């Protein structure tokens, strides 16, 4: 297990504030948050490239806080390309093995194995400046794995890739992880985080504000920021009329079967909203008339921008029969399932 305990670091203009996380062996852990949150600095501290001002790091119960970077079995793939430009792809992968004085036969065997696993056998003799973004990431990961890293830290490995390369590398990362490697992965793409993470943490201004399984974070984001960051778009400030009735923006009144003690914001997740093109008979509880303002088509879904006195968003699957009947300006019935509302 990798245990990060109360790590603090003042670095340039920001402060990493008492970060504590435990990452289990074999876990895929995603660290997410906006730019400048301190994610990359935390990774460099874990890898031993920079030292923390205070706190401790334990790897398999051994304190590695002051252990030299070369002696930690933690591979780091940087956000920017760090393939050595004066070496070929093969020489780059050989680098950690040659540094550790592996014999020639062992080096060749290991490079061949890793190149096969990573699908880069055909580019081993290429210069690194001729590689595509996806190839650079594959070679960088291969090089980190060549050094027998037990933990792999990936700093935004997919951020600069096109959609196809991103998908290919995502599948590759899943496959490496299935072989038992523990992976820590930084991303600011919530979709990527949910696709890969066993567990994830949201980091803002040098602090971890929520750390849990992705589903749990979706069900109960701890703040409006987290809800916004992980992709919820329908969140609204509310006032409580009673313990079973609340009002959004002083326009929409929602009755709730559950007792509400206190709430400043609510999130209406996708599953809390349903749309019906028959709007004449608004009789159900928590049903409202809305107008479709905009329809945005994606390859696998359709996003509706609705106006029910306040803006609201609903995503429908391409297979939904309703899609063909919807046009901008159409009046629709919108029902809110109050049992699925998330109270913040």
């Amino acid at each position, binding site marked *: 297990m990798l245990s990060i305990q109360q790590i603090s670091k003042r670095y340039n203009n920001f402060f990493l504030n008492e970060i504590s996380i435990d990452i289990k062996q074999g876990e895929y852990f995603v660290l997410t948050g906006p730019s400048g949150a301190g994610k990359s600095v935390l990774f460099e501290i874990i890898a031993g490239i920079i030292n923390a001002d205070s706190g401790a790091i334990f790897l398999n119960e051994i304190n590695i806080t002051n252990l030299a*970077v070369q002696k930690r079995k933690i*591979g*780091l793939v940087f956000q920017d390309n760090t393939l050595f430009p*004066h070496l070929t792809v093969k020489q780059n992968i050989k680098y*950690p093995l040659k540094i*550790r004085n592996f014999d020639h036969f062992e080096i060749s065997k290991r490079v061949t194995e890793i190149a096969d696993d990573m699908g880069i056998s055909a580019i081993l003799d290429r210069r690194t400046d001729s590689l595509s973004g996806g190839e650079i990431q594959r070679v960088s990961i291969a090089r980190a794995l060549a050094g027998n890293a037990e933990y792999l830290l990936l700093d935004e490995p997919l951020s600069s890739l096109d959609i196809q390369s991103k998908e290919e590398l995502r599948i590759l990362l899943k496959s490496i992880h299935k072989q038992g490697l523990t992976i820590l992965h930084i991303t600011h793409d919530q979709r990527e985080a949910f696709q890969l993470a066993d567990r994830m943490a949201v980091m803002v201004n040098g602090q971890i504000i929520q750390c849990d399984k992705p589903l749990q974070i979706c069900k109960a984001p701890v703040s409006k920021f987290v809800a916004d960051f992980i992709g919820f778009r329908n969140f609204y400030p509310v006032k409580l009329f009673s313990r079973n009735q609340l009002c959004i923006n002083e326009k929409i009144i929602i009755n709730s079967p559950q007792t509400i003690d206190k709430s400043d914001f609510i999130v209406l997740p996708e599953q809390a909203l349903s749309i019906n093109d028959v709007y004449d008979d608004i009789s159900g509880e928590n049903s409202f008339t809305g107008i479709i303002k905009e329809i945005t088509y994606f390859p696998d879904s359709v996003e509706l921008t609705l106006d029910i006195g306040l803006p609201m968003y609903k995503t429908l699957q391409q297979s939904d029969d309703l899609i063909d009947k919807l046009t901008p300006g159409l009046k629709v019935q919108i029902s809110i399932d109050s049992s699925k509302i998330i109270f913040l």
Partner: protein
Amino acid sequence: MKIKTEGYQISWFNLALIILGGFALLFIIGPVLGMFLHSSPVKVLETVQDKEVQASIFRTLAIAFTGTLFFAIFAVPFAYILARKEFSGKRLITGIIDLPVIIPHTAAGIAILGVISRDSLIGKGAGLLGFQFVGHPAGIALAMGFVSIPFLINAARDGFLNVPVRYEKAALNLGASPIQVFLTISLPMAWKNVVSGFVMMFGRGMSEFGAVVIVAYHPLTTPVLIFERFTEFGLSYAQPVAVIFILICLLVFILLRLLSVKKVAR
């Protein structure tokens, strides 16, 4: 306003730049070219066969090259420190490095002589070992090195500054020790600048006269030999030696440059 020519246009400003730049270039080429044109090929050929000239050229090249190599052992790591580390007094030290370039080279020679003369601590120490810097190739190398080392330090420092720190961080993370990072990543990536600085230091060192003549008139280096022939026999005797030395300097300079380009292109 633009001047129209057949294929393209030249603005007055660009024309002025070309003319002014041309004068600067002529200022460098003119005297050298003039010297070549005024030298009789027969005299140059005779001078090539002169044993004293041959010995002085070989001596100058050997001392300058060995000295540059020796000083590089200190200058390159120092340049790396200047590029990578922050410390108090760094600006002052950076200024001190350029000092030999701006002080008169005869004054530099006097300064060196003060440190290595027979009466100095170093001179006495060398004397105990049965050797003296003054009048010795080692003294010449020191004089050459003193005036030319800024070229190597500054070029190497710029080279190391051009190597992004992330490559060194990556190498550390891959298990390299700091010295392995320096030898396998930083130095190869800054190689072009280091070699360029080496060539500049070597070139500046072998052409040094002012500091060398004070530390060691003998054994004769070629710049001192040119001076000696000029003062004792006149311009026509000094010119062929100068022509030969310039040609050899150019040849060595081009060879070393080609070497550095090939190393980088690999």
